[in-house]
């Protein structure tokens, strides 16, 4: 009976709600639309105050400029070289630790788990100076290594949290049965538990990819020469070159955001789940 009736939610005025939402949605979209518009307009149009009006014609010069710039290629390559390994390493390490916290708990393991998860909440400025000194001493400043390493380490809180919580839902009987059959813990983890954890892996992959791709602070600290910069720093660097070429800047922003926008479009479900899970459980 209760299922056939529509659930009464908190909605006294359906038509009003829809209208209000439409207005808010337009307001929310405006900034993004502005960038879209700028990318297909000439600088002349924009500086004449025509940015926010509907485009008279589709101008693709900004995109050819951005896509033909070798600096942009290098920034993209560097960002991929940081994002892919750091995402993979942080998830792998998270799975290793998460397995122990979920399936092989020991005295004090919960406290240890909390210490790691708490790392998620601290401003990165807290460890900036010592890390700079460490990598400076190792001669790794102005390479991509420190960025990869730090992202792998800072990704651990969310990865450990998510993997432990997911592994905890895998029945212990499954592990025990496999061990009885003569499997090692390593085999249980890689052959039994991990194949069951694909949703958690998908959540983490989308989250980590997005965060690391978008990061600005760590490449700002650890890289110096233009050939080592990632795309988000690159955008800032190119601002000088295209100082009043607003349209090119718009196209650049769009191209730089494309990977994360695509991830968001296709994996939105995982993305939102990860954000809420990380936030609520933390």
């Amino acid at each position, binding site marked *: 009976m209760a299922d056939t009736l529509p659930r009464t939610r*908190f909605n006294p005025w359906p038509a009003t709600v829809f209208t209000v939402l439409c207005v808010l949605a337009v307001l929310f979209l405006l900034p993004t639309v502005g960038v879209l518009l700028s990318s297909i307009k000439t600088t002349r149009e924009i500086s004449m105050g025509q940015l926010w009006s509907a485009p008279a014609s589709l101008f693709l010069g900004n995109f050819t400029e951005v896509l033909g710039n070798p600096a942009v290629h290098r920034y993209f390559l560097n960002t991929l070289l940081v994002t892919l390994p750091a995402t993979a390493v942080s998830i792998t390490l998270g799975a290793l630790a998460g397995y122990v916290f979920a399936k092989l708990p*020991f005295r004090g393991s919960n406290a240890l788990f909390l210490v790691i998860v708490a790392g998620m909440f601290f401003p990165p400025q807290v460890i*900036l100076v010592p890390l*700079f000194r460490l990598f400076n001493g190792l001669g790794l400043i102005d390479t991509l290594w420190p960025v990869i390493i730090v992202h792998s380490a800072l990704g651990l809180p969310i990865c450990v949290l998510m993997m432990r919580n997911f592994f905890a839902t895998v029945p212990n009987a499954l592990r025990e049965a496999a061990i009885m059959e003569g499997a090692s813990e390593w085999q249980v983890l890689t052959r039994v538990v991990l194949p069951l954890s694909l949703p958690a892996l998908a959540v983490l992959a989308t989250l980590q990819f997005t965060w690391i791709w978008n990061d600005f602070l760590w490449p700002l600290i650890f890289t110096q020469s233009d050939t080592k910069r990632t795309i988000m720093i690159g955008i800032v660097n190119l601002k000088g070159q295209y100082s009043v070429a607003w349209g090119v800047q718009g196209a650049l922003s769009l191209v730089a955001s494309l990977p994360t926008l695509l991830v968001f479009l296709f994996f939105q479900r995982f993305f*939102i789940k990860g954000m809420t899970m990380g936030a609520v459980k933390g």
Partner: protein
Amino acid sequence: MEQHNRFWRIALLSLPLGVFGLFVIWPLFSSFYYSFTNWNGFDANYSYVGFDNFAKIATDRLFLQAAVNTTIWMIAAIVLPTALGLMLALLLDSRVAGARVFKSIFYLPICLSAVIVGQIWTWIYQPDWGLLNTVITQATGEKFKYAWLAKPDTALWSVIVAWSWQQTGLSMVIYLAGLTAIPGDLLEVCEIEGASPWQRFRRVVLPLLAPSTVVVVALSVINSLKGFDILYIMTGGGPFNSSDTLAMHMYNESFKKYLMGYGSAISVVLFLIALAIIGLYFRQLRKVDRIYG
């Protein structure tokens, strides 16, 4: 069996714990150490200066300004994304047509880099052809020209608004998750009993959302403490440090002026503030758990 377990614990944990210890925990403690030195970022030699850096904090006018701005940011962070997120969640939870599309629209900014968000909003505030001035010009009929980001009075708030635009989606989805946990029957009963929409919201929905509110507020406050990238892009802390935050001040002292000892002292203060907030958060979470869990 116990020996078997111990072997695997060590085998599986050593790598993640090693990485976390070496690149997160150890630097954290080192920060405390450097905060008592005058290291300049390059020299191998530096000396122990006791509490000098902390004494300097007490008299640093720029630090005070940054602390005030961080507090303003935190309070705005509690109000703006939280209230807006709650409103959007309530609207979306009402089985409105196209709820999923709306949700994606409000959520989209979260996946953008702070660099991009900063750039987008710099354009909105652009004095000559920015959206804000264009709208004001058309509404008043007079040419309006105001450099929002270049005036000490408005710089900080302009950045906070841009930042809230990005954060609201996060608060919204957390509230939405909380709302789906409220049984529809309960609201139905209230309606039958004659509770007005406002009463239903104030007396039933809002109290039941308390756990979500704790999470949203804590997250907003913590994220406001991390606010750096968007500020760096939009104002760089200026004009005249009027939009400086503690995170920004720490960066400037350490990596612009190369006063890494002093910067470390600021980061220690930042750490202690974060620690206090997180402690408060966990306590509230447990309290809410006891009442509503």
